[in-house]
């Protein structure tokens, strides 16, 4: 099956899921430094190069510093729709040619959109690197001359089908957008999902595409990272040949602040869906990525729900066996963040009984903290994820781009890993108290016609 051009939300979280290994003795397994060179073309395009000759392949990974968080009300989902349109050919590349020539060269390629950025990448045999530079520079510099409404309409249909496949035709799929709309004020750019609404996708026009391109898709709003088997002198020459003629665009002013989030009291919501079992979602406003308490909240999520010995899994799924599964995550993005726990009760179990356990376990962490062993397990799982992200050239390109974008320094993997090493049990207890002590959004997704199954303020199902 083909899965392309996905909308991707929790980047950090997905790394964790993919992740695996580490040393219990934190000193024993150091995270290697990624050597790189960074420079900027006169037109503002940032270039990051990392050589790795272990396999004769190369990853070309372009980040545009724009995401759904830059969208306007009424055009939600546009950044991601635009990402799709970027594969529809450009002035010198016919419709359909993009994927055809890449696949015939042995390349795999894709793109993805988050709240904060849009990426486009190819992994190719090392001889095919000029092909990626030709295609990527053509869509950076020459997208609009051959842009027309049929291209937009076609990808609009594809994206609507992506939304159906990921959201509308998926059990609990609409929970996320209900939660975001309840958690953030309407003018907050994280109050809508990356995939957007059907209405807004229908409203997107050719003019929107042209304006968005002119506003955000200039070399001075992009970073081109190349990692793998190449000769740096040759690559620099090629990059200059393909990209330096693309004119600089107007300065991009990205939002730096967001409207304040205010949840004065616990808010209980219900959504009916075509599901056999209800599911409870607890969401707290937390902090943005890389801010002071972000790492401690990541570890708290691990301790609360992400392995068999975690507090809620052990209690609800392993011992009492009243829940089918439970998960938790801290989602720290560029501008803001949230902490979420979700639980699916087993057939016949009441959400109110689940809720009692959730409240008790959170109170236990707030009141008596976590053990050193619990923290160490969580830290080791995190540490493992850092090593695994460096196993492929595309992984390394993403790491360099990600740090470059979020902390302004590609060379940050060791510092990032150190953030997790520094967290203490007192930190975990403190962040639990600070953030999980706040009023929250509680959504119960219930089977159609079973609204009475929802969790209410009185703590009980009605």
């Amino acid at each position, binding site marked *: 099956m*083909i899965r392309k051009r996905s909308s991707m939300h929790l980047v950090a979280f997905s790394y964790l899921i993919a992740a*695996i*290994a580490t*040393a219990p003795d934190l000193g*024993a*397994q150091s995270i290697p430094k990624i050597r790189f060179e960074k420079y900027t073309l006169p037109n503002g395009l940032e270039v990051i190069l990392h050589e790795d000759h272990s396999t*004769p*392949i190369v990853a070309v990974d372009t980040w545009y510093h724009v995401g759904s968080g830059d969208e306007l009300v009424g055009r939600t989902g546009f950044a991601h729709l635009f990402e799709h349109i970027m594969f529809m050919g450009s002035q010198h590349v016919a419709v*359909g040619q993009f*994927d*055809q020539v890449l*696949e*015939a*060269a*042995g390349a795999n390629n894709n793109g993805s959109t988050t709240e904060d950025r849009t990426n486009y990448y190819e*992994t190719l*045999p090392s*001889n*095919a690197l*000029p*092909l990626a530079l*030709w295609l990527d520079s053509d869509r950076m*510099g*020459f997208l*609009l*001359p051959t842009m027309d409404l049929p291209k937009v*309409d076609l990808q*609009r*249909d*594809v994206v609507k*089908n992506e939304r*159906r496949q990921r959201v*509308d*035709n998926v*059990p609990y799929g609409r929970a996320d957008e209900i939660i975001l709309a309840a958690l953030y004020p309407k003018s907050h750019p994280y109050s809508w999902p990356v995939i957007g609404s059907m209405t807004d996708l229908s409203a997107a026009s*050719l003019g929107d595409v*042209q304006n968005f391109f002119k506003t955000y898709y200039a070399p001075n709003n992009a970073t081109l990272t190349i990692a793998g*088997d190449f000769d740096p002198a040759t690559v620099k020459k090629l990059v*200059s040949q*393909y990209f*330096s003629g693309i*004119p600089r665009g107007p300065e991009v002013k990205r939002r730096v602040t967001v409207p304040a989030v205010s949840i004065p009291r616990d808010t209980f919501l219900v959504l009916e869906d*075509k*599901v*056999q*079992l209800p599911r409870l979602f607890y969401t707290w406003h937390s902090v943005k990525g890389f801010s002071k308490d972000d790492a401690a909240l990541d570890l708290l999520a691990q301790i609360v729900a992400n*392995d068999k*010995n975690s507090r809620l899994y*052990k209690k609800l799924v*392993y011992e009492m*066996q009243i829940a*089918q599964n439970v998960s938790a995550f801290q989602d720290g993005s560029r501008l803001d963040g949230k902490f979420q726990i979700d639980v699916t009760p*087993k057939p016949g179990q009441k959400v109110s009984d689940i809720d009692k356990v959730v409240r008790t376990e959170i109170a236990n962490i707030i009141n008596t903290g976590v053990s050193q*062993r619990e923290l160490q397990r969580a830290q*080791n*799982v995190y540490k*493992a994820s850092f*090593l695994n992200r460096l*196993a*492929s050239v595309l992984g390394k390109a993403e790491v360099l781009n990600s740090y470059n974008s979020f902390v302004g320094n590609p060379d940050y993997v060791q510092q990032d890993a150190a953030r997790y090493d520094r967290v203490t049990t007192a930190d975990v207890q403190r962040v639990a108290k600070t953030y999980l002590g706040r009023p929250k959004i509680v959504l119960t997704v219930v089977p159609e016609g079973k609204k009475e199954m929802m969790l209410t303020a009185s703590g009980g199902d009605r």
Partner: protein
Amino acid sequence: MKLRALMAFTALSLLSIPLRAQVVDRTKPPELGPPPRVSLPPILTRQLPNGLRLMIVEQHELPLADFVLLVGSGGTADPAGKTGVANLTASMLREGTTTRKSLDIADQTSFLGVSLNPQASWESSTLSLHTPTAQLDSALALFADVALHPSFPTNEFDRIKKNRLTELLQLRDQGPAIANQAFPAILYGSGHPYGAPLIGTESSVTGLTTADLQAYYQTNFKPNNSTLIIVGDVNPAQIEQKINSLFGGWQRGDVAPLTYNEPPKAGTTTIYLIDKPGAAQSSFRIGSVGVPRSTKDYFALTVMNTILGGSFSSRLNQNLREARGYTYGAGSRFDMRRAAGPFTASAEIVSAKSDSALIEFIKELNGIRQAVPADELSRAKRYLQLQLPGNFETTQQIASALVPVALYGLPLDYYNTYVQSVEGVTQADVGRVAQQYINPGSLAILIVGDRKTIEQGLKATNIGPISVRTMTGQTVQ
């Protein structure tokens, strides 16, 4: 008019780019140098006295290693009426050993920062370990204990069983999952192991006991029925010694080879319809019984399927997604196992276009039987040949690539001759295998969707009679 004016303005503004900046010819793709010569890492093989085969590949880029214990029995070795045993046996490996409790295994796994994953598939059961080499010894001790000394505790089994039954209940929420389970049931019926779901059915799982799992384990988990794949930052001599001390005491035993019933003969093309009221998309699974992994047509089929539905620029995806926008992605595949697995073309289609999409699917399945243009054939071959090195980048990828080599007895130089084997596929070969294995007159077409809104349109295509089925693919009584 307005649109036109805007376009003209855009084109004009781009003309203002200074011409001297155009230092490359953008009008055609750059000439590429020859593809890099690929030599895939050598595979060292060893055999312990008890028959356990080792396949070792050194890869020293990062301090990581992957281990896959591949047992040559999977779901097809489930005893009659006990479907789901292999799957539950694999799940129970982490639920307790003679010296470690379930929670201890989980604690050590997280504490070591390793991943330890058991899994059953059709023809094999695997236990995979991914570990940093800094704590290789502790990780290997855990791995070997879980593999060799599972105790199948009753209390843990009761929990896992309830969990599995709830999973089966939740499956009803998902159209694509319903389709994935019902399609093989329709193709193979109840008399063939591929017709039953790997995770079992509500009735089979309900009836299982730990004795069934013990028996499955005792029968199939034998060193002479297994290969241990080792890839990563290891020294072959040292690792062989470690493995010998951990796995050397594993007792060999006879494992009877499996026999497979013939799958039922395909009937004339029929549309099987499973109602999923209100579904936003229809889940399409179209195909027939395909071929075993041992087929001499492996490379011809692989090239043919790449053209039909095995890549992004394949015909099915180009037509259904990129030309018509009916879906987020369409494709096709041959699942090749010890016996003939299914050939399946699939997509999730917006409900309102179910009839139109069916017509296009059938058009493509007919079209691939016509002569394939030389340039399209060439693109597919280049794709398969040139992306090969990228599949051998990480230790996990290399370990996965070795699984079929071990399981199906492929030659150790299989990947080194892969490029040549693909190159040998001719236009005539592609035509021949398409004609032989894709028969538009005898397809099973399964569509899981909103019957109320899609049935009339599907009927009107006249592609085949409609047979309404239950959620598990059975005839409605």
